[in-house]
């Protein structure tokens, strides 16, 4: 393996010499960054939340194995606060991730790349409206 040349002065600024966790955390260091970077970070956070939710969902489904009464009781509990608020938040996460996915699919192929900021604002506006509608349906 070839020896890596890394000037001492660059350590800590390039990220190359830092641990993998520190490098990973740079994804979320949005200080002094533009809105595109904020969208990038938020997309990763919402993606991880959705993956986490998938496992929670699978775990919740194991209640089916305990019989209909156990499952119905579990669902009733999920329909009440505070879990119902988590459902609203989950819709918000899902909507943002999905709409931003469309945004980066477009810009990622060179379509409307120079409009990426405006597209992000559109994602946020449409996402907020959809989440508010979902919140109304879930809570009222």
């Amino acid at each position: 393996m070839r020896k890596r040349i890394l000037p001492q002065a660059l350590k800590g600024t390039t990220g190359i010499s830092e641990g993998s966790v520190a490098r990973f955390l740079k994804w979320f260091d949005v200080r002094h960054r533009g809105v595109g970077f904020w969208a990038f970070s938020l997309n990763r956070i919402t993606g991880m939340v959705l993956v986490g939710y998938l496992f929670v969902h699978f775990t919740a489904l194991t209640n089916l194995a305990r019989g209909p009464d156990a499952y119905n009781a579990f669902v009733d509990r999920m329909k009440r606060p505070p879990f119902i608020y988590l459902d609203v938040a989950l819709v918000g996460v899902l909507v943002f991730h999905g709409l931003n996915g469309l945004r980066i699919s477009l810009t990622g192929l060179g379509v409307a790349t120079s409009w990426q900021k405006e597209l992000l604002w559109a994602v946020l506006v449409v996402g907020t409206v959809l989440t508010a509608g979902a919140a109304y349906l879930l809570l009222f």
Partner: protein
Amino acid sequence: MAAFVIRVFRFVPGQDARPRYERYVVEGGPRTTVLDALMEIKRSHAPDLAFRHSCHHASCGTCAMRINGVERLACVTRLASLGGGEIVVEPLAHFPLLGDLVVDMEPFYAVWRELAPPLLRRSEGVMVKGRWVRPEEGEGLMRFEDCLECGACLSACPSSATDARFIGPAALAMVERCLSEPRDDLNAKRLLLADTEHGLWRCHMAFECSEVCPSNVDPATRLMRLRWKATLVRLKRLLSLPGRGPKRSVAKRCRDFEALGEKAGNER
């Protein structure tokens, strides 16, 4: 260290009633330049003083001004070389004055472009909408010409943080520029090298490269265009259409790219 007296022309059209000269005293040694003195004046005495500077080594010509009545580059004109007495610093003459020592260079460049275009070989032209044009007529190409190769894009890119082999926005934007303005026979190889995991597909579109670029090159847009071109080549290859680009085994391409990525990683 010695004290030098600098008289600087001050006038902002539309803001000041009339031009004036302001006197500043600056400490300097035998190697202190006029540009050093102006920066010290701006730092310590007149934060609103306007002047241009860039490379600091007589390469860019940005700091051209009249010093003791003679046009010189402030970055390489030493205070000690100007003899005794006050040193008078004024903006270039015969240019529209923007403020203090800054003049409007655009008319100069416009004439330059009109009367002294660079020598253009046919092979250096670019086909745009069916006609050959000079590269500078293509705005996108010119923007990339402005790339200072400063590395700011790579530094700001979050994908670079977690992939030391990512060859980075500037290099990928350069590939796109080469594809847009073909001058040699290496573009097929360039595209093969860029169209990999550590190449153009490593970008996750934070657009921070374009955000921080000091020269407004907008590497993110170029990188996205490159993706589209690579996608078309892949689609054509998949559908066995003409113009699908050269075939090369995945293993060979990976070996090539490993060498390139290793080089990029090492040099970082």
